[in-house]
């Protein structure tokens, strides 16, 4: 009887002793683990938790320094350009939309590989890479126009420092995602991503969706929430926002 029970438990849990289920080592459909979740997927979730804290710290830095450049300009000690002068919401809305759509194509790529549809996988992966690249191109031209036309460098003022750091690290994340997706395309062209390797697509997909979600937060905090408008005329700062507010109340 001991034998019988042991055999039963063996079949239920035999996976727990397989060492090293790493990428490229898919021998079975579902590498059995104690939790039933693939090692790579659990690793990615842990990494994303950590990355939340990473972006959390960067976003906190951005928010703490929000308005500092304006304050210095008002005091006559700082220089522009200031956020309200350079940020182009319609332009960035389009690239945000492109990035969000890339999450859709990512899901379609995963669905394809799970059905064993190599062609579908390739098409949707390449579509995701293209959309990601368009987003990166949009960021490149945005940075370029800020730097060359508006004169906003990394060290120009606190807005430049925090803006380029936060959006730049997000862009780096997108770039790494694009590189991983291109690797997947390469693997798929060389011999195809097997059905049991779909987990690789899924894990990279998790990363990709996370990067998208972070962009929604950054887009909202950096672009959509209005900034204080400061116009300096003849050395005296005029608060556009304050003027509008007082007019609204009928006291200006």
């Amino acid at each position, binding site marked *: *009887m*001991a*034998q019988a*029970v*042991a055999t039963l*438990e*063996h079949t*239920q*849990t*035999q996976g*727990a*002793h*397989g*060492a*090293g*289920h*790493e*990428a*490229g*080592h898919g021998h079975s459909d579902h590498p059995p*683990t*104690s*939790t039933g*979740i693939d*090692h790579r997927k*659990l*690793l990615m979730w*842990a*990494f994303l*938790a*950590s*990355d939340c*804290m*990473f972006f*959390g*710290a*960067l976003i906190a*830095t951005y928010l*703490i*320094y929000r308005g*500092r*450049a304006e*304050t*210095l300009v008002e005091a006559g000690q*700082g220089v522009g350009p200031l956020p309200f002068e350079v940020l182009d919401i319609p332009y960035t809305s389009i690239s945000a939309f492109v990035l969000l759509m890339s999450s859709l194509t990512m899901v379609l790529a995963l669905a394809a590989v799970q059905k064993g549809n190599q062609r579908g996988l390739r098409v949707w992966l390449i579509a995701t890479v293209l959309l990601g690249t368009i987003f990166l191109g949009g960021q490149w031209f945005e940075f370029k126009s800020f730097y060359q036309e508006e004169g906003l460098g*990394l*060290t120009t*003022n*606190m807005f430049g*420092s925090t803006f380029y*750091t936060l959006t730049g*690290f997000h862009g780096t994340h997108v770039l790494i995602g694009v590189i991983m997706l291109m*690797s997947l395309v390469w693997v798929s062209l060389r011999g195809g991503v097997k059905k049991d390797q779909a987990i690789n697509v899924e894990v990279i997909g998790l990363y990709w969706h996370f990067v998208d979600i972070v962009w929604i937060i950054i887009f909202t905090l950096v672009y959509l929430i209005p900034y204080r408008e400061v116009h300096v005329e003849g050395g005296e700062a005029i608060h556009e926002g304050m003027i509008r507010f007082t007019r609204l109340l009928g006291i200006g």
Partner: protein
Amino acid sequence: MATIAQPGTLIAPVAKPGTTGLWSWITTVDHKRIGIMYGVTAFFFLLVGGLEALLIRAQLAQPNGEVLSAARYNEMFTMHGTTMIFLAVMPMSSAFFNYVVPLQIGARDVAFPRLNAFSYWVFLFGGIVINLSWLVNEAPNQGWYGYAPLTSASWNPGRNVDFWMLGLQILGIASMAASFNFIVTIFNMRAPGVTMMRLPIFTWATLITSILIVLAFPSITVALLLLMFDRYMGTSFYAFAAGGDPLLWQHLFWVFGHPEVYILILPAFGIVSEIIPVFSRKPLFGYVVMVYAIAAIAFLGFGVWVHHMFTTGLGPTANAIFSGSTMLIAIPTGVKIFNWIGTMFRGSLKFTTPMLFAVGLVSQFTIGGLSGVMHASPPIDGQHNDSYFVIAHFHYVLFGGSIFGLLAGIYFWFPKITGKILDEKIGKWHFWLTFIAFNATFFPMHFLGLAGMPRRQYTYSEASGFATWSSVVSAGAFLLGISFLVFIYNILKSLRSGEKATDNPWDAPTLEWSISSPPPVYNFATVPTISHRDPLWWEKYGGHEPHREEETVEVKIAGIKIGQAEARDENPKDQAVHASEHNDPANIHLPNPSYYPLITALGLFVAAVGLLIGEPVLNIGLLHLPALVPVGGAILALGAYGWAFEPAG
């Protein structure tokens, strides 16, 4: 009847080609070897950090000391703190995570063996980067906390801060990679029957420490990235003039720094939670509460960082809130202390060396904990801030806590790792010498602090009245140094001619003691299945407390119980450990050795050295990159791609 696997008796371990020699260590992905490499490297850095401390104490042994210049003194205390925290205590804990955790959960390796090797190499290179600074005479000099503006390019124009900043960044990568690995390993690689609530407490401590690391380190990563921008690219994140705020550094640093305190102590708590039950001959008192207490400490640990900043003027509201949250931590910590006492209470205590160090932790950590509760009160903290009282406090928790715990762990698991028992007689000399020297070193610091002696100052005058206790402290420190010589002697002597260890020399209850000492490369010839916590005791004593066999009255009871346990043999539910699979060790699938982790880690090292050397500079558009940085990046990319497409075996 199926029992625990005895691989040594089943089939002789198979000698695989390439299992000896330097190359086999360089390419190893075996968690046991990586654990040993972590342990040896960490011990080396512990001695380096100790020497730095002794130089500090030599300088302060008498008024107007002339051993170190003021500038050298700054370097010494900075490197002492940095080395002890990042290069000694954390990797020593990591050594135990690596060696012990897979064995405790019945696994044959960690979830990502190559990532594990990568963590080690990155840690080693990070340690080298920081210590290279001595060679060019530009050692970090801003304190281990690196407060702005001490780190700014204008106030600290040398490369001192750069070595520290880049080294720490690299060490962060090592810690995070290792922690991701252990989180996945502990959740996913448990043998049949090893449920979360049957995990040994040390494995729980490892899991929660790993979670703390992956959530706390990003904050210092960002802090250091911003510092890199400030120093290399001229931004002003921490410079007041351009609208920045030096306090931002303190916030980001302590959001990491306080969880870091628990990252340093929780593994030691886990170790003593394994040792005290073994030498009290009783299961751990309040296992479940213990698990929740560790989790509660970790959770609260994220909400108390401002108590490091009470004197920065954040105002009464912030101070009151963080004072309250800090005091709350005393509750789960107190629970742990009472649980250890409860475990020992009416136990059949055996004061072996590991037990002495474990009990040493309980007593000495409590002293540090009590002064910690004092600091939770902002008015008291204002008095203690930047005085020797604070140094006394954190050495009671770091040395009296972490180091005592780690030493206990070395004595406890040394037989499993090496197959030899550390000499008990020398061990007891070692313990008492350490214990006395430790208290001689750090207790008088309370008096010095209350008398107003400021920390981080390289000298003091005769008129200050600090001379007497300072010389006592220095004498204690050198005695502490001698205690480590005794320890090294014990290790060398026991390795050569120590008593051979049996599989389970302490009669301990967890799975690592079910296999040979040292374990075979595949750990478990037969993957164990457990049905209870403390599986080896359950199997041996039929679910009854093991100490009963040692007392006359209870031997009789135990006799009956053991008889019953045997009578119930047909029922496998009563078997705490039994075989779930019979395997020929020759057929056990083990991951292949790999040198890609080393290459990938080397890329980071080359890039960091490139930033430190600075020349020749490549100009790519707006970027002015030292040439070695893209070279390092290329090595890293090459290693990562080789790794990703290498068959894992």
